[in-house]
């Protein structure tokens, strides 16, 4: 396997392992760790694995989904899509990997449509959450949205609802910037 495919394979394999063992919290931690790596590498493929890990975490935390009689079948279906992506990576076929990721998203959408009461899908929410992680790791809003495939506006709203900006106080406060604004437009 080439280096890039090898790294993607290693992380996706962990995702599948945690999912098969129903380790929801480890999936969440894994998603976060992968996104950090995705930012450093600016790797959209790595970000996709982060999104998949997060969405599987969310699924496992939804009682009405995992306790449903359909769950066993749904879990196999999602695992099969991940398995196909792993096979594609073993063959260094990034195009096929993407197709398998699309197939995963389609399968998830069917599950989501069956169970969800919300207009915004699980995948879309996961993309926004993972993009907010990318923003936390230093990327600009637009870069983070692009990396995780999230909607730019939804990301900005989501980031606003988190405490990230409370941890990053700007060097110049409102008063100083206001003074500069007034001087620029009135001067």
């Amino acid at each position, binding site marked *: 396997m080439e280096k890039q495919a090898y790294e993607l394979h290693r992380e996706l394999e962990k995702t599948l392992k945690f999912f098969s063992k129903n380790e929801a919290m480890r999936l969440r931690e894994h998603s976060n760790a992968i996104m*950090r790596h995705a*930012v*450093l*590498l*600016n790797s959209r493929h790595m970000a996709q694995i982060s999104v998949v890990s997060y969405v599987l975490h969310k699924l496992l935390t939804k009682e009405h989904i995992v306790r449903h009689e359909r769950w066993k079948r749904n879990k196999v279906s999602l695992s099969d899509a991940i398995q196909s992506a792993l096979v594609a990576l073993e063959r260094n076929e990034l195009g096929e990997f993407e197709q398998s990721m699309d197939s995963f998203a389609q399968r998830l959408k069917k599950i989501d449509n069956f169970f969800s009461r919300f*207009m915004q899908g699980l995948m879309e929410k996961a993309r926004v959450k993972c993009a907010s992680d990318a*923003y*936390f*790791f*230093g*990327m*600009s*809003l*637009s*870069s983070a949205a*692009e990396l995780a495939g999230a909607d*730019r*506006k939804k*990301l*900005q*709203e*989501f*980031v*606003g*609802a988190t405490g990230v*900006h*409370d*941890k*990053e*106080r*700007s*060097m*110049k*406060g*409102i*008063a100083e*910037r*206001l003074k*500069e*604004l*007034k001087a*620029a*437009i009135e001067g």
Partner: protein
Amino acid sequence: MKSIVFDSSTLISLSSSCLFNAVGELFKASGLEAVISSGVEAESVLTPINIKRLELNAMRIRHGIESGWIRIAGLDESVNSEVTELAGKANSCFFTSLGNITLLHRGEAEALVLAEKTGAVVLAMDERTTRMIVEEPERLRKLLEKRHECRVQKNQAVSEEISKRFRGLKIVRSSEIAVLAFEKGFLSKEIGEGEKALEAALYSLKYQGCAISSEEIEEFLGMPK
């Protein structure tokens, strides 16, 4: 007429709140214009206007364009290559053992170049990373190091080149524009007067994603006026 270039982050914060028209009134009364790039127009009007969930914001911004306080500036080929060059430089400012850290999107670099080319007096940008690359690159390096838990180095020459190039450019957020609108009485029709109204406006912008801390808001509200 003096102009302020708006990045999409500021446009989103303001148009998502009820302050947008009041800011429009402020601009008209003060002889100001908001300038956006065609890329920002595409991102904030042309694409979302066809998506039901995002249509209202897009309509608000389109109304701002139609009523004349927002102007769209197209970028020609030579400027486009400058944007590409700036984005490339900004994305080589910081690096780890794995290589350069890509931080900036083309759209954010476009806002900086547009501000430079149009001779704008101010750049309005709610997004924090671009602002920090220009204003406080060393703090951004430390932030990256802390968040990634690894050594992050700065390409000093490139970083200084960017800071020097945009040194004269004043960067504000939607929060400062809202305070100005408040002080000049343009928010009273929407949210009334008094400190509580200002507090509500600032927190609304914060929750729309403007990069401002609660501490900054509280500190500003507590200042003698």
